[in-house]
């Protein structure tokens, strides 16, 4: 009996079936559900770590102790974890270790479109890439076999369309693994220069052995085709687009192993076809390798470096007929995502905009504050960059346009990468005000717990990190808490802190309006007789408020009664 599984759930099932016993990750779309899903199996210890570096090092520690371990992250999370990645490649493992990284071609929910395959090559680690849920499960299991056979962490590369697509898989039982004993082995695990010099040749030899393995691996396979005028090499989700577009017209070499690549297999495949075409999203990773072998091929000159591919795109580039379609030719208003009714970020953003401040932003739901009508952000780079960026901005003299700058960062993001930036503000004494938008949850990725919420991944109560005490402990003397529904209080606090020439933190605290335990007062309404249609209440971009026949109207099915709009009405028409 086959079951329909989300790609990420299939990875989780594969981890479980392979006897994985330890998981540590940080959430990040499109990788999050792997860890949420594996946490549901009672045999697996699973946790949210404060960031990907901590997660990877914890998973390494678990593998060192002798149990099969896993960490998962999105592509930009791998940048954070890159430091341990490059060195655990040298040490190898005790029990198997698998690292999943989910890329986001097309940037559905990411700030860049990096191609994480480069990391496998740079860190000299094997990388597998599935093309659907069945492979996601099988490759996760295979990754553990390779990890233990070749003494290496193994990377599993996912992408949005594999992570977030459902397809059928066959379920198997868990194969329980007895923990291996840890033996102290300084020459393998203490990577000081003398030992690391001896491990580096091991890594190079391992890559050669893995390349040999890749030549015979079933996951690198040829689908025969009817016409050998062309041959196609592809990987991951592109394989599905190719098969959808051309069926069995041309032979296809599907590469399930991305690093190392199989030289002999590629050579023999290329010799049987007249023209070789490489179809891969993002960078020319396979193409450059094939060209380095002196084999002529086409890839990026046809398909480009940007975004997601599709079966129509593949069909078009290969000269196949495209399906007919009819365009809807009238203009259609756009519908970007918006901050929810009752979102606690709205009030504080209104105040920052009103005070005319520059705002260095960060990664989270609150990035939506950049949209109209709040327009409240100046920058968004990566996790933690608001705090450290603000320090540099202020130390270097600020904007020189008379406006001051503040930084905003969410509670989870602050725990991830904001603390060290705040240490820098305290230590090097910049007159910076950091606003922690504490909504007591990791919001954007879909409500994950974090060290400030008092609950762990399994939902059990646990140690709750005290943000005020933490900020004071790193040397910030001015720490205060405001309620973002209270605009007056927020405005006073922000004005005061930006005027005082010393480091400060304002914690804007109110739980996410979508959390189940949050009780709302209920919808409020507008007195049409008092409303003069001045639109003051519309400056906050609340999706519950619209203008009907020149007067404001509140959608009672959406409004939760936060009352932020009420404070803006000079005619006392909202109540």
């Amino acid at each position, binding site marked *: 009996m086959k079951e*329909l599984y989300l790609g990420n759930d299939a990875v989780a099932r594969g981890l479980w079936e392979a006897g994985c016993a330890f998981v540590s990750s940080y959430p990040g779309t*499109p990788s999050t*559900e792997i860890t949420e899903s594996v946490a549901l199996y009672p045999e697996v210890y699973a946790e949210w770590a404060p960031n990907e570096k901590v997660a990877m090092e914890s998973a390494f520690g678990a593998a060192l102790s002798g149990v099969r371990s896993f960490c998962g992250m999105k592509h930009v999370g791998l940048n954070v974890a890159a430091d341990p990645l490059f060195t655990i490649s040298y040490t190898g493992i005790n029990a198997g270790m698998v690292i999943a990284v989910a890329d986001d071609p097309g940037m559905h929910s990411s700030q860049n479109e990096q191609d994480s395959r480069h990391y496998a090559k740079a860190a000299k680690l094997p990388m597998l890439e599935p093309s659907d849920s069945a492979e996601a499960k099988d490759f996760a299991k295979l990754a553990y076999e390779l990890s233990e056979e070749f003494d290496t962490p193994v990377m599993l590369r996912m992408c949005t369309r594999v992570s977030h697509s*459902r*397809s059928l898989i066959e379920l198997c039982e868990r194969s329980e693994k007895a923990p291996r004993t840890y033996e102290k082995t300084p020459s393998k695990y203490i990577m000081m220069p003398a030992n690391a010099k001896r491990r580096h040749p091991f890594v190079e030899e391992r890559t050669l052995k893995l390349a040999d393995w890749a030549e015979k691996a079933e996951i690198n396979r040829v689908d025969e085709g009817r016409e050998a005028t062309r041959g196609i090499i592809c990987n991951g989700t592109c394989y599905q687009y190719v098969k*959808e577009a051309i069926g069995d017209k041309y032979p296809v070499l599907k590469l399930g192993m991305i690093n190392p690549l199989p030289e002999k297999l590629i050579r023999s495949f290329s010799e049987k076809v007249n023209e070789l075409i490489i179809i891969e999203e993002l960078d020319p990773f396979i193409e450059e390798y094939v060209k380095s072998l002196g084999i002529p091929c086409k890839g990026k000159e046809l398909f480009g470096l940007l975004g997601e591919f599709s079966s129509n795109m593949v069909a078009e580039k290969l000269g196949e007929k495209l399906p007919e379609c009819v*365009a*809807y030719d009238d203009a259609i208003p756009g519908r970007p995502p918006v901050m*929810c009714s009752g979102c606690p970020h709205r009030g504080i953003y209104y105040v920052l905009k009103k005070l005319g401040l520059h705002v260095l932003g960060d990664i989270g739901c609150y990035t939506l504050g950049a949209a109209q009508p709040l327009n409240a952000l100046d920058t968004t780079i990566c996790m933690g960059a608001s705090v450290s960026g603000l320090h540099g901005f202020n130390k270097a003299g600020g904007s020189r346009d008379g406006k001051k700058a503040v930084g905003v960062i969410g509670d989870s993001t602050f725990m991830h990468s904001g603390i060290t930036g705040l240490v820098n503000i305290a230590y090097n004494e910049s007159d910076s005000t950091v606003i922690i938008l504490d909504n007591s949850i990791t919001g954007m990725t879909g409500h994950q717990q974090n060290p400030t919420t008092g609950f762990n991944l399994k939902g059990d109560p646990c140690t709750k990190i005290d943000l005020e005490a933490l900020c004071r402990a790193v040397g910030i003397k001015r720490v205060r808490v405001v309620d973002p529904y209270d605009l007056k209080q927020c405005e006073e606090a922000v004005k005061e802190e930006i005027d005082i020439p010393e480091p400060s933190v304002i914690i804007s605290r109110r739980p996410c309006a979508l959390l189940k335990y949050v009780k709302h007062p209920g919808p409020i309404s507008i007195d049409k007789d008092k409303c003069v249609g001045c639109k003051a209440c519309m400056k906050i971009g609340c999706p519950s408020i619209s203008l009907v026949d020149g007067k404001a109207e509140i959608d009672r099915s959406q409004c939760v009664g936060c009352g932020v709009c009420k404070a803006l009405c000079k005619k006392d028409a909202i109540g």
Partner: protein
Amino acid sequence: MDSKSILIAGVGGQGTLLASKLLGRLLPDLGYDVKVSEVHGMSQRGGSVVTYVRCGEKVYSPIIDKGGADIILAFEPLEAARWFEYLKPGGTIVLNTARTMPMSVLTGQEEYPEGVTEKLASLGAKVDALDALKAAEEAGSSKAVNIVLLGLLSRSFDIAEEKWLEAIESLVPPKFLEMNKKAFSIGRNA
């Protein structure tokens, strides 16, 4: 075995994921190969969201391309228009006529276009339209819009009613089951 591609278009928060989940529960049991593609994450709330459901003897691509959908299940008229190019010429649009205003319309920067349903039909689509919000409220909850629309959608499939009801039963909490069954029935018999 007929292959079918259904594009589900709506606004984040409307319950489009439950609709695709239900089709994902129903179709494999009938012996179809099935693929469903969803978008999670930041685009959820208030933004335009799309889910693809494909079934047939063998399905490769998890996404639907322009000109590839047999049916568009639209939770909102603008979203039907936005994804119209993805419909096969002469395909079916199962449409909720209740409007959800985008932010640019709420703030008065843009106008909500009139006559969307008529225009969709004039471009050759078979439009099966219903005010699903009103129907859901009639069934007992404005949250049942997705189930009403599934009832409406079920008319385009040669699948027995009890199979649909079994799939609903497996996905909704028992205390809301009767209400959801009523919502489905209103859609199916509209």
